[in-house]
């Protein structure tokens, strides 16, 4: 019990440190950015036609002129009270914007995460089990090809094939253009999510499959696999009985570590597919100097990634008998 409490407190402390670091870094990068919020959001021409007072008002709104440290501490103070501020571009509370966008992205992310996890595991196990032979070489070749392909290029390629040439899937957005909100069906949403989710899955698979393959090869070269062979177990049985069991632990780590890659990838992919999700909001906030929104998005996604790793740690304790029984004994 004491062990678990120490574990929980330690994790929370680390998370607080991480989020603090992420927010400071984001803030520093935004402050160092050469973008002038007024020029970007109001425009040179409009600014020229405004009076001094109007410009001063706008400067105050975008926070120009306030010392950065003061701005950051002000933001931090509000966040500690649970107030993430108001998005300067959307003119809505940051949490509300993030909530809406996250709801839009969630299915996309979840779908990509699950598909890449399952497919990556299956491909990795298959490649490992057939190491050195044709299936392994094909899978490895595919993974290396995909790993060295930029995500945005793959997204464009899929758009070109499925939306332009074949015309079977929509070219972008999350719902049909000009449709009444009430008339939009789940099928519409799914149809619009297929391509971005597919892009994310395809790129996510490579990493998981290659790592799983390495582990599988290790297992099959292990002493205990040799002993299983000596006792008359077939290769297939060894893969199923010993392989999957021993690949499970690293697979869990990989799967939860891939959350960060999926979220990172979604920024690019949502941009290509003009999909109104969290990734796209992050780009908008970054380019439009919407400091509260960008800080909100980075902190919340960092918390999600951290949460994923935490879940992996906890699952380790459930799956790995060394940790499970070791902790129970304490």
């Amino acid at each position, binding site marked *: 019990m004491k062990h678990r409490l120490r574990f929980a407190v330690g994790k929370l402390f680390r998370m607080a440190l991480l989020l603090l670091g992420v927010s400071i870094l984001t803030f520093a990068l935004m402050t160092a950015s050469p973008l002038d919020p007024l020029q970007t959001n109001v425009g040179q021409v409009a600014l020229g036609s405004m009076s001094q007072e109007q410009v001063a008002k706008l400067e105050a709104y975008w926070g120009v002129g306030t010392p950065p440290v003061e701005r950051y501490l002000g933001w931090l103070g509000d966040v500690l009270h649970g107030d993430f501020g108001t998005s300067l571009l959307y003119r809505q509370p940051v949490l509300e914007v993030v909530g809406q966008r996250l709801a839009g992205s969630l299915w996309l992310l979840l779908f990509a995460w699950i598909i890449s996890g399952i497919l990556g595991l299956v491909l990795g196990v298959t490649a490992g089990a057939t190491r050195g032979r044709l299936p392994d070489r094909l899978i490895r070749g595919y993974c290396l090809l995909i790993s060295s392909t930029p995500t945005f290029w793959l997204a464009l390629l899929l758009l070109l094939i499925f939306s332009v040439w074949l015309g079977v899937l929509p070219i972008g957005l999350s719902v049909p253009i000009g449709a009444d909100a009430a008339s939009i069906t789940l099928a519409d949403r799914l149809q619009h999510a297929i391509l971005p989710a597919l892009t994310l899955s395809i790129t996510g698979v490579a990493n998981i499959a290659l790592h799983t393959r390495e582990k599988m090869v290790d297992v099959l070269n292990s*002493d*205990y696999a040799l002993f299983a062979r000596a*006792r008359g177990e077939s290769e297939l*049985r060894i893969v199923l009985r010993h392989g999957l*069991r021993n690949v499970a632990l690293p697979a869990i780590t990989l799967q939860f570590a891939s959350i960060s890659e999926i979220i990172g990838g979604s920024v690019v992919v949502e941009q290509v597919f003009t999909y109104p999700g969290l990734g796209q909001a992050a780009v908008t906030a970054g380019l439009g100097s919407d400091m509260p929104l960008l800080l909100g998005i980075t902190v919340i996604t960092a918390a999600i990634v951290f949460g994923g790793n935490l879940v992996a740690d906890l699952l380790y304790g459930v799956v790995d008998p060394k940790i499970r*029984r070791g902790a129970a004994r304490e």
Partner: protein
Amino acid sequence: MQPILEIQHMSIHFTQYAKGTRRRELPVIRDLSLKIEPGQVVAVVGASGSGKSLLAHGILHILPRNSHMEGRILYDGGDLTSKRAARLRGREIVLVPQGVTYLDPLMKVGEQVRGDDAAPDAKQRARKALARYGLAAGTEELYPFELSGGMARRVLIATAVTHEPRLIIADEPTPGLDAKAAGRILGHFRELAEGGAGVLPITHDLELALTIADQVAVFYAGQTIEVASAEDFASPATLRHPFTRALWRAMPEHGFQPIAGAQPYPGTQTAGCPFAGQCARSTPQCREAADLPLRPWQGGMVRCLNPQREE
């Protein structure tokens, strides 16, 4: 009596790629012959790196893919083909491996002793096998990391007796155990032999091998260089091969005298006796002889141009 296992002129080669695409055949075991009768313990003794473990894998037909085996293995009078070996291994022919790393770290002991056996009485047999070596029922629920060294060894022996084995190959049966525990483990093997099985311990420890073996096959650089009865080891005078004598003298109670040099690496030696480089009695002929057969000599077998033995 019909031997349970007879190995005739076994050779194992590995295919290696040296410098790009140049293939090279690496002989690890050359012209090995061995015979075990039911109820007999024949120990194979050799230094590390002499190819001992591969002998076990060769008998079981579980050598790596880049290797190939020549020669003939007869089991119970019939050719032990890879198909036949696949049917018998884990049942009639069993391997007792070296240590706890041969157990799946994430599988409970009970399940591993049972093995991949769906028979309804498999669980019962596994329990009996564990009990036979003094392992309580609770052992089934343990994971390998929870076993002590001695327990792990007993679990590994238990895996061998879930069926009724007729040939037991024990690869380094006693590493890391103190003399008392090692003696107990060897006693278990002796007992299996007394039950009618052939036991083939493979070890580097001549001293321990002599405590249970009826016969000892001495292994040097992938070859059997001498087959002698355990009694022959009472004195160096009754041993045939200079290397066997050197081994005898290297035993702690016989003065602990090492010999200079090391056995040649596989593939480095082309002609002559592999021991010639370390042998005090070697002659120019020893270094040139193209073919040194293992031949019967004074009640044993020896592979030497110039064997000694004084009655």
